[in-house]
């Protein structure tokens, strides 16, 4: 589309809360705990991942507090090891992996493709219970005394040298892994088999494409992590020697199996976020995403390349130089589809009519921080630099830029963007803009100094450091405090908005997605009748026509 279509925003004062919606269709705790409705399951996930996010965040706070001074003065060294282990495990397996797919994906994917539900609603509920079981095992290991392997469970440390609750935590991750497998399986089948008439692959919103790509990774990668954990547990329990060099096993084999999942897992974490950004940018520039097909395929390409780069986590672990070279080259390739996305988003904004609502602010944050995170990934992917920088704070800063600066920004962009759809109410705009800015400032203050301190040579995972690194560490801890405020704010005002927020109406952003054409919050069955799709995704001219047609019609029920 060459011309930009500007659609006037509706008058929110006339919007009314629909009498009947998925939220009040049934009442009582059991109606939530036994629900098969993808929207309710999405909300259950939203509550539970928020809970675990704050647990993981508390550990991050403790880590930064200890690192405020060079001396090991707040906690003992093995307690510190437990802090960063719990921070990593909770944040990765209980927050980042399920964050966007299990909450927003669950809620929106069926609606976006015009389906009544995911293909397997009961399996969807089962996956939430598996997630909770995994969460409970993690909390159990925490209460019983914690675990200090690091989230990577490096052998033989995890199998032979530690007497902490490795098995409990391993069980947690094994179970939570199946939650993720079932979510991915459900999404793939839903996208293949449940699309409404006329909803072809290339009419799907890009959010669906990125969920699809992430689901492929979940389905193909997670079982490998599961078997690696099973073997690790067997080794710890019965002393079998698959990874034990004393018995002829190879600790590197564990690294291969672990990173075969855990590297693609970072794309499980980031791809759904990229999907959110595509939706947000299109909506707030009122333009079709530039190079739709390229952006769609770049998601699949990231998923595909993601499976062939895992050994870049092992450059210093004794893999052969030749394979290290090949993996270094393949790692560079991932930058190509990532850059395609960034450039296409930039071109989407060119000559668009941009407005700066909160989701858009988060999306800008995403683009900036993800670009820095991605480019430093190229540093680390190149063999010589990696040998110098590996196991330093440079790595920590790099993946926090991608995971926190990228994914968490995208998650918050998505939560704000779809909050009116999820709850039927608006969040307070000015306060949330403040939160977005505070988050951005706090994030940069926390993690930019870590690039420097890492480049200077400060290793990760130690609770004491030479005094000359203190200034940068103090900056980082101060930033973490600001970041903490930035994350507390949304919890408070989003909670407030549930009761006092302005009524949103069906389509407060004038967005084109199918989810915005139904009432908010939606009905349990999503659509009154199966929609028939005749237009491309992000077709603002179609939306304008539609708005004209139903100018004075009341579109919600009740």
């Amino acid at each position: 589309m060459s011309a930009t279509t500007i659609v006037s925003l509706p008058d929110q004062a006339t919007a009314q809360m629909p009498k009947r919606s998925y939220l009040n269709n049934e009442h009582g705790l059991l109606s939530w705990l036994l629900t098969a409705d993808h929207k309710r399951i999405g909300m259950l996930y939203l509550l539970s991942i928020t809970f675990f996010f704050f647990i993981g965040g508390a550990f991050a706070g403790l880590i930064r507090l200890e690192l405020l001074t060079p001396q090991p003065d707040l906690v003992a060294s093995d307690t510190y090891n437990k802090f960063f282990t719990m921070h990593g495990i909770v944040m990765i397996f209980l927050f980042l992996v399920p964050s966007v797919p299990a909450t927003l994906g669950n809620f929106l994917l069926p609606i976006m493709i015009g389906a009544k539900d995911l293909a397997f609603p009961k399996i969807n509920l089962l996956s939430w219970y598996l997630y909770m079981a995994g969460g409970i095992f993690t909390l159990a290991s925490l209460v019983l005394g914690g675990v200090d392997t690091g989230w990577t469970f490096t052998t033989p440390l995890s199998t032979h040298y530690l007497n902490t609750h490795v098995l409990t935590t391993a069980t947690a991750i094994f179970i939570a892994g199946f939650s993720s497998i079932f979510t991915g399986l459900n999404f793939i089948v839903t996208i293949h088999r449940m699309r409404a008439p006329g909803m072809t692959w290339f009419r799907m919103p890009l959010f669906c494409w990125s969920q699809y790509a992430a689901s492929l990774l979940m389905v193909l990668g997670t079982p490998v992590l599961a078997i690696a954990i099973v073997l690790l547990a067997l080794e710890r329990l019965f002393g079998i020697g698959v990874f034990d060099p004393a018995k002829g096993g190879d600790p590197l084999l564990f690294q291969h199996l672990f990173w075969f999942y855990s590297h693609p897992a970072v794309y499980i974490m980031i791809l759904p976020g990229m999907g959110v950004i595509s939706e947000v940018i299109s909506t707030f520039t009122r333009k079709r995403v530039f190079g739709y097909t390229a952006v769609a395929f770049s998601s699949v390409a990231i998923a595909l390349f993601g499976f062939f780069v895992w050994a870049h986590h092992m450059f210093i672990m004794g893999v052969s130089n030749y394979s290290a070279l090949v993996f270094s080259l393949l790692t560079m390739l991932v930058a190509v589809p990532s850059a395609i996305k960034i450039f296409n988003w930039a071109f989407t904004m060119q000559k668009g009519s941009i407005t700066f609502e909160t989701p858009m602010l988060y999306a800008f944050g995403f683009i900036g921080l993800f670009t820095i995170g991605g480019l430093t990934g190229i540093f680390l992917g190149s063999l010589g630099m990696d040998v110098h920088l590996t196991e330093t704070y440079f790595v920590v800063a790099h993946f926090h830029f991608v995971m926190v600066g990228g994914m968490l920004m995208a998650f918050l962009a998505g939560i704000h963007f779809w909050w009116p759809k999820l709850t039927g109410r608006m969040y307070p705009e000015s306060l949330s803009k403040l939160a977005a800015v505070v988050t951005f400032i706090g994030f940069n203050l926390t993690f930019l100094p870590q690039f420097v301190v890492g480049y200077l040579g400060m290793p990760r995972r130690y609770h004491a450091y030479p005094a000359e690194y203190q200034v940068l560490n103090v900056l980082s801890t101060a930033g973490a405090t600001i970041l903490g405020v930035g994350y507390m704010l949304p919890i408070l005002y989003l909670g407030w908005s549930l009761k006092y927020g302005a009524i949103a109406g069906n389509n407060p952003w004038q967005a084109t997605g199918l989810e915005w054409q139904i009432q908010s919050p939606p009905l349990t069955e999503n659509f009154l009748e199966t929609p028939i799709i005749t237009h491309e995704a992000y077709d603002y001219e179609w939306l304008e026509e539609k708005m004209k047609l139903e100018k004075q019609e009341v579109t919600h029920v009740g």
Partner: protein
Amino acid sequence: MPREHAVHDEHDEHHSLPQLRHHFETEEQQREAGSFGMWLFLLTEIMFFGGMFMAYLLYRNWYYPAFAAASNQLNVPLGAINTAILITSGFFMALGVWAAEVRKKSTLVLMLVLTAVFGLAFLGVKSDEYYEKYEKHHIPGNSFNISEFVNPPINAKTGKPTEEPLMPDMAQKTQVFFFLYFAMTGMHAFHMIIGLFLLVWLIWRAQRGDFTSGYVAPIENFGLYWHFVDIVWLFLFPLLYLINRHPFK
């Protein structure tokens, strides 16, 4: 694939099954979604077993003499019998799917029972093999005995050892073989046990007539699972029992 515009002629409405879930438009869509989901699940199972196959191939390459000697200790006749038993079980499962499709209730129940019986027979033979490993001290751990690999028994006729003697260092690596043997066959047996529990449930539902009025998806999908477990064994049997067979003359 984009579905055709949903066709709801009277014929379809009239015959719609009680098992059609509300969120599917048509029975066909439900059946396709179910079997597609099952295939995807089997794909995750392939990745799950894949980790162990990777370990097996790696260590077989590293410790070839130990793996050859240890593999020669496995009971090939029992393994072959088990392979035949499992294929027979799979055959009855296939007949069961056919019986459900042509809506013959008693045949379906009979076939599912036979599938389960042969599945149980497999596990019986397997446990006998495990017991043999226990008696020969081939279970990895403290009781593991490498003397047989260091000093193989002497053949009375030729006066030569029946196997190539291994250095004690290499003989220790036979333990790695048996780790993997127990891990892989154990994981396979675990999948069969889950399958047997599912079979009991399916038999109970089949004799109620649940699957012989046009709703065959659960039988089909379980059939896929059962055949997958068969196929895993068809890879395990040659890898563990056959491919190193007696390289020593």
